C-alpha cells in the first residue's frame, strides 16, 4: 500500500481527491474532458486490478463487460428511461451477468490459458456487438444517448450536459468504487483472494472453495467494469463495438501495470497516464500509439512494479 503506512496514505488520497475535484475550476474545457475520460477509464482499470493484482487472474477480455455495460445503459437511455441510478445500475447488472458464465467457463483453466480464454470470449462478445445489428446497429453503434437529468442540479440551473457537473459525477462514482474495492481488498474475502493467488493448493487444502472465491471476484470486477461502461456511454453519447475490442482490455492492463498493480491507486494513476497519452498526446503528436507502446515496453523492462513501486521504494 502506498505510500508507506496507513495515515500518510489517507492524507495522500484525500489530497489526490481534492486536487482532482479542483480540475473543473481551473482547467481548460478540453482538459476537463480528458480528465473525465481518464476517471471513467480509472474505474475500469481499478476493477481490472481486483482480478489481475489481488486475485492473480490476468484477464485480456475485460473490455467485454465495459462494453456490455455501455450498451445496456445506451439501450435503456434511448428507451426514454431518465434517471442516474437506473442507468448506472443497469450497466452494473449487465456487466455482472455477462461476467458470470464467462467467468464460470474461463476459471476452469488458469494462467496463460485463462488469459487466452478471456481474450476469446471478449472477442466473441465484440463479434456479437458487430453482428447483432437489430439490437446494436452493428458498427454504426447506438448514437444519441441522452444524459440523465438530476433534479438537484436543475435547482442550480445546471445539467449533466455541462462538463463540470459531469466530471464531478464521474469523480464521485470513482471515489465510491475506490472505497468499495479498497474495503473489499482489506476484508477477509480480499485476504483469502490473495492467499489463493499466492498458493491455491494450500488454500484448497485449508478448505476454501477457491473456484467460488475466484468467480465472485470475476463477477464483482465485471459489475464495476459495467458501471464504468455506463458512464462511458453517457459521456460519449454513443456506444460502438470499439468499446469491447481487445485493445481496450490491453490498455486497461497497461494502466494497471504502469500505475502499479495491487494498490488501486496505481491503476487510477495509470489510467490518467494512458488517457493523457492517448487523447492529450494525440492532439500534439500523430504517433501516440508508438509513444505509448514504447513507454509501456520501458515500464515492463525497468519498472515492473509501476509508478507506485517507485514511491514504495523511495
Amino acid at each position, binding site marked *: 500500500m502506498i505510500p508507506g503506512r496507513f495515515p500518510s496514505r489517507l492524507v495522500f488520497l484525500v489530497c489526490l481527491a481534492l486536487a482532482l475535484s479542483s480540475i473543473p475550476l481551473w482547467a481548460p474545457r478540453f482538459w476537463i474532458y480528458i480528465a473525465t475520460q481518464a476517471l471513467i477509464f480509472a474505474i475500469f482499470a481499478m476493477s481490472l486490478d481486483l482480478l489481475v493484482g489481488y486475485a492473480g487472474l490476468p484477464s485480456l477480455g475485460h473490455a467485454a463487460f465495459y462494453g456490455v455495460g455501455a450498451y445496456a445503459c445506451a439501450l435503456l437511455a434511448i428507451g426514454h428511461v431518465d434517471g442516474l441510478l437506473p442507468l448506472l445500475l443497469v450497466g452494473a447488472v449487465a456487466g455482472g451477468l455477462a461476467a458470470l458464465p464467462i467467468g464460470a467457463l474461463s476459471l476452469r483453466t488458469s494462467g*496463460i490459458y485463462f*488469459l487466452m*480464454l478471456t481474450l476469446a470470449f471478449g472477442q466473441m462478445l465484440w463479434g456479437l456487438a458487430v453482428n447483432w445489428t437489430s439490437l446494436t446497429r452493428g*458498427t454504426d453503434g447506438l448514437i444519441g444517448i441522452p444524459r440523465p437529468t438530476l433534479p438537484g442540479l436543475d435547482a442550480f440551473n445546471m445539467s449533466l450536459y455541462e462538463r463540470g457537473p459531469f466530471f464531478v459525477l464521474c469523480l464521485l462514482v470513482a471515489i465510491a468504487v475506490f472505497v468499495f474495492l479498497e474495503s473489499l481488498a482489506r476484508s477477509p474475502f480480499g485476504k483469502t483472494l490473495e492467499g489463493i493467488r499466492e498458493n491455491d493448493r494450500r488454500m484448497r487444502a485449508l478448505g476454501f472453495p477457491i473456484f467460488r472465491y475466484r468467480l465472485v471476484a470475476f463477477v464483482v470486477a465485471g459489475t464495476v467494469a459495467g458501471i464504468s461502461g455506463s458512464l462511458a456511454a453517457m459521456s460519449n453519447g454513443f456506444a460502438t463495438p470499439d468499446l469491447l475490442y481487445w485493445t481496450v482490455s490491453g490498455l486497461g492492463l497497461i494502466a494497471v501495470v504502469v500505475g502499479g498493480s495491487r494498490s488501486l491507486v496505481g491503476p487510477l494513476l495509470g489510467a490518467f497516464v494512458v488517457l493523457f497519452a492517448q487523447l492529450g498526446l494525440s492532439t500534439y503528436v500523430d504517433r501516440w500509439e508508438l509513444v505509448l507502446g*514504447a513507454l509501456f515496453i520501458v515500464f515492463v523492462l525497468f519498472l515492473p512494479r509501476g509508478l507506485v513501486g517507485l514511491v514504495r521504494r523511495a
Partner: protein
Amino acid sequence: MISRGWRTRHVGGAKTLVTAGINPAFTVTLGKVHVVIGNTLQLIVNGLAFGGLVFLLAAGLSIIFGLMDVLNLAHGSFYMIGAYTAYTVVMATHNFWLALLAAPVVLALIGALLELVFFRRLYRHGHLTQVLMTFGFTLVFVDLIRSRFGPTTRSIPPPPGLDGAVNFLGATFSSYSLFVLGMAIVIGALLVAGWRVSRLGMVLRAGVADKEMAGLLGIDLPRVFTLTFAFGAALAGLAGVIAAPEFAIYPGMDANVLILALVVVVIGGLGSIEGALLGAAVIGLGYVVGSTIFPQFAIGLIFAVMAAVLVVRPSGLLGRRS
C-alpha cells in the same frame, strides 16, 4: 474497420466472393451475399486455404510458447509486416515471387533482433509481464506501419498465371485460392515432417519437453531460442505475403488474424505442431459450416467450438496435460 477483409472479384463473368481471405470476424456483409449451394465446395477450399494461412501463424506461436514459455502477441504484427513487405517489393519490382522470398528473410532478422534485445530479458518473469510487453510491441508496430504507409487499405494483384479462375467439379475456384491451399499443405507437411524427423525438430521437441534436461545434454538453448523465434517470425511473414493478394492490407490487420491464431493454438494445444494443424482445420471448416448455416454468427461458432474443447480438455486437443 469492418468488412475490410472482403474483396469481391469478377471470376468467369459472375461476381464471385473470394472467401479465402475473409477474416471470420468481419462477416458483417455476408448476409447480403447469396451463398449458392453449388459454391459449397468452393467455400470448403477457401475455408481450408484460410485455415492453412492461420496455421502458418499458429505453428510459430505454438512452438515459441512451448519452447520459451512466451505468449507472443506481436506475432500478428510479423504477419502484418510480411504483408507490407510484399506490398513494398511488388510495388518496386512487380515480382510477387521475389516478395515471397524477401519477406521471410526480413522477418527472420526482425525476430532474431527482438529476441536478442528484448525477449531474452523476460524469460524469468511471469507470463503476464511477457504478454504485456508483446502487447506494447503490437502498438509500436501498428503505428510504425501507419506512419510509413498511412491508414488507407492497400492491395497487390495476384502474380501472373494465378489471377484467373479454374473450373473443377462444377464449381469455379480462383486459382490463387488453390495456390494458397497448396502452399499451406506443402509447408504444413514440411513443418510436421521437420518437427518429427529432422535434427532441429528433435532438438526443439526435447526443449519443449524438458528445457533444463535439454540444456544439460549440451544443447545451446539461447541459440536455439533465437533461431526458433526468427523461424516463427519468418513463418508469420510468409503467411503475410501469401495473404497479401487475397486480403486487404491495412494497419490493424494483425489483430484479427492473431486472435484466430490464438484460438487455433488453444484448440490444438500449446507447443504442438500437430495440434496447430488440427486446430487450423477445425477453424477453417468451422468457418465454412458457420458461414453457410448462420452467416451472421460464424465467428460465434468458432469461439463456441473453442470453449467446448477447453471445457472438455483444458489443455487443448493434443496439448500436454498440466
